[in-house]
């Protein structure tokens, strides 16, 4: 598995090795574009994220502070917490979407497969190619067909024509458990689908570029209970091949769907901090911190 985060001209000497990760750096071998790009090769088991001492905000406002969290491969990690605890800001730091807002800043380390995605020369677009995102409101491209919605990410990322596009679109739609519902109307508009279908279309679009990690920001909050359950069951299917981080206001959803849960809460300085994290089985039956207990039992928040 090769992870490339650097834009072509930047030379990677080495990436920091953490927790026993073995990194191997290959030098440029030929003049073609692909081969002149520095490569860091890692075993698949290292395709996790490790967040160290992350702080992020906007201008003088600190939205999250001092967050360290390990995202384990092939698991679902849920981020829960009251409004204003910095959940979404934290999530958006994991694929450098946060900095798209004017005045936004982030400090700390977010490593993907051992490489800091905030490291010098890292191309945010490449980061987002490896770390896909699904948003709260289903947002299919309104002028595009179902097929083109899924193909769009591939076309953008692969600099031109994709030879096996039909197969890739079908595979992504199957992965998103949408294929059977749309295979007869691939060239109709994506916006004609129901809310739940649109959200699965957005998941298919994110999966089409074959990311390693999928970030989901309240992916079911605009959906009815049945569509919500479909998304949750889909997540349990996807986690066999992908690593998922989900932000949710819905504590019950976090309890149902995740393997690990992290609880964020706003401190006195209004910055969101990590209060507790652990296996979901434990956090929802026997939380260690009284603030977590108070939140999950509905005593505040």
């Amino acid at each position, binding site marked *: 598995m090769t992870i490339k985060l650097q834009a072509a001209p930047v030379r990677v000497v080495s990436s920091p090795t953490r927790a026993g990760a073995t990194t191997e750096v290959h030098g440029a071998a030929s003049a073609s574009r692909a081969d002149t790009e520095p490569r860091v090769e890692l075993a698949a088991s290292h395709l996790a994220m490790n967040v160290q001492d992350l702080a992020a905000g906007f201008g003088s406002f600190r939205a999250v502070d001092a967050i360290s969290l390990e995202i384990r491969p092939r698991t679902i990690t849920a981020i829960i917490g009251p409004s204003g605890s910095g959940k979404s800001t934290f999530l958006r730091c994991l694929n450098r979407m946060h900095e798209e807002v004017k005045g936004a800043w982030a400090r700390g380390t977010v490593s993907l497969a051992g490489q800091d995605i905030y490291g010098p020369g890292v191309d945010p677009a490449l980061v987002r190619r490896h770390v896909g995102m699904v948003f709260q409101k289903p947002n299919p491209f309104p002028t595009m067909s179902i097929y083109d919605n899924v193909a769009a990410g591939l076309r953008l990322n692969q600099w031109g024509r994709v030879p096996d596009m039909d197969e890739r679109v079908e595979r992504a739609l199957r992965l998103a*458990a949408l294929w059977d519902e749309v295979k007869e109307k691939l060239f109709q508009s994506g916006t004609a689908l129901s809310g739940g279908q649109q959200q699965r279309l957005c998941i298919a679009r994110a999966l089409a570029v074959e990311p390693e990690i999928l970030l989901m920001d309240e992916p079911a909050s605009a959906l009815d209970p*049945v569509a919500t*359950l*479909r998304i*949750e*069951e*889909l997540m*349990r299917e996807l986690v066999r091949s992908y690593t998922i981080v989900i932000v949710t206001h819905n504590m*019950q959803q976090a*309890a*149902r769907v995740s393997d690990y849960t992290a609880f964020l809460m706003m401190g006195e300085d209004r910055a969101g901090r990590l209060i507790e994290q652990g296996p*979901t*089985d434990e956090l*929802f*039956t026997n939380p260690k911190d009284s603030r977590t207990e108070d939140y999950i039992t509905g005593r505040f928040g």
Partner: protein
Amino acid sequence: MTRTTLDRELQRLQDEMSLMGSIVSRALGESVEVLRAQDGAAAERLMSADDAIDQQRYAIESDVLILIARHQPMATDLRALAAILEIVGDLERIGDYAKGIAKVTLMMGGAVPLPPLPELPLMAAKARSMLSRALEAFLRQDAEAARAIPQEDDEVDALYNQVNAAMIEMIIADPSRMDQSNYITWAAHNLERAADRVTNICERAVFTVTGDMQELDAS
């Protein structure tokens, strides 16, 4: 595709409960064999095996709590989980009755030959048959079958009364056998209680299907 995770987890818990039921049932049968054979070594093995049954109960209880916390089950699912919590408690107690019979075997010490006790294996076989059908009725959600089983408890009670009468006769005939007689009555009482626990399981099966809490004690 909807709710497959909850269904899978419920099925897994039911399988674990069934497995625990078979282990407990086998322990009950073995306990009577051990008593009749006055086999001290086997009695000790049976007593220590009870720890595993206790652990199984705790593990299932913990899994039920996790499932409730994570999946917020409703209606039949919620009643089934509440029933499983109760049923594993009953199974664990039936395991304790088997352990108690093994303990009686050790206390008797094999000194005096036992009188013939045809009632004890009959009681054990009846209780085991009732247990296995009660668990099946729960798993199949068969309230009618669950309602019918407790009536059979009368047969176990009748056998217990026979043992009791025989032991009183034995003491009258030979007062030196007072201890032995008490031990045997104790063992028979454990078997009678085991069958009573099956009635509780039947009540939980009916509750899971209908939502009604009903006493099913026939006698």
